[in-house]
């Protein structure tokens, strides 16, 4: 049996990250389930992946902390092997109008969503360059493509993530490595649970599909971009939003 390709997904204990782990495991990849605060949920994802016949491992990784990223990569390299697929999914959001938004919340948002993705990519790229193969998928948001009142930090971080995606795509695209972004619309996860009923209704009305997306629907796109067949897709920004920004 050929050795499995190894993937690391950050923020993978639930939601889109967890669904991505399961999709990748089903595609035959060995998956490191990165989590920050909820090891039990990460272990649940691992158990589900294994129940599907996949190979998975829960790995603690706080993407805001360079040392934690280094530890996580070393652990994955030691127990599974070199990371060939990186899914930068860990995300943070805290809504609030800019005039009253704290610097702490701004930093937490940018550090997690943008700097975290950069630091993980920087750590992953040398081994991908050496292998002349790699996949990085950044989980951005439709908020990267249109403004949202009350989400200045979040939209800035996700727009930044799209910029990071495109620059990295150009830097390493000649080495068999692709870097793409997916932009989910309104997807039912813990992160969107906090949105008020009014906001949810507004999103629902704006979405041609007339419903919210599921984590699995986003995971399917991430899994495609992570696979060998997506080798000519590079620097793309793929919306998975039920037509929200069409």
């Amino acid at each position, binding site marked *: 049996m050929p050795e499995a390709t190894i993937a690391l997904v950050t923020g993978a204990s639930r939601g889109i990250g967890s669904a991505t782990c399961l999709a990748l495991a089903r595609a035959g990849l060995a998956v490191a389930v990165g989590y920050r605060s909820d090891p039990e949920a990460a272990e649940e994802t691992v158990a589900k992946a294994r129940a599907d016949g996949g190979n998975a491992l829960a790995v603690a990784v706080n993407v805001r902390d360079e040392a934690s990223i280094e530890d996580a990569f070393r652990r994955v390299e030691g127990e599974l092997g070199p990371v060939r697929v990186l899914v930068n999914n860990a995300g943070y959001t805290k809504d609030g109008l800019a005039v009253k938004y704290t610097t702490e919340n701004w930093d937490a948002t940018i550090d997690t969503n943008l700097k975290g993705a950069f630091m993980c990519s920087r750590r992953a790229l040398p081994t991908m360059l*050496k292998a002349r193969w790699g996949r990085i998928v950044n989980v951005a948001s439709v908020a990267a493509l249109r403004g949202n009142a009350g989400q200045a930090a979040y939209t800035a971080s996700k727009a930044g993530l799209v910029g990071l995606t495109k620059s990295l795509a150009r*830097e*390493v695209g000649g080495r068999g490595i692709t870097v793409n972004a997916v932009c989910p619309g309104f997807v039912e996860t813990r992160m969107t649970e906090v949105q008020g009923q009014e906001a949810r209704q507004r999103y629902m009305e704006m979405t041609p599909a007339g419903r919210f997306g599921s984590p699995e629907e986003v995971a399917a796109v991430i899994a495609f971009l992570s696979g060998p067949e997506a080798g000519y897709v590079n620097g793309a920004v793929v919306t998975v939003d039920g037509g929200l920004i069409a």
Partner: protein
Amino acid sequence: MDMPELQDKVRKILAENLSVAETQVTPEARFQEDLDADSLDLVEAVLALEEEFGVTIPEEEMEGVKTVGQAVQLVATKLGVSA
């Protein structure tokens, strides 16, 4: 390790990473003009040198390095090998 030995090793790694013949990798050879290396080629070569010699070469130190000889010297300084 002495200087000739280090030089041999560095040249071998550079030749392999830049996909050029070792004979082309002379001390005077300029990465960009003579060896057709772009900036990513150079970064990859530096990663290989770091791995081989267990040294860390920060970006600002890479900037002044234009020739093979300068690269050898940079690694030699890191390792405390003198000519």
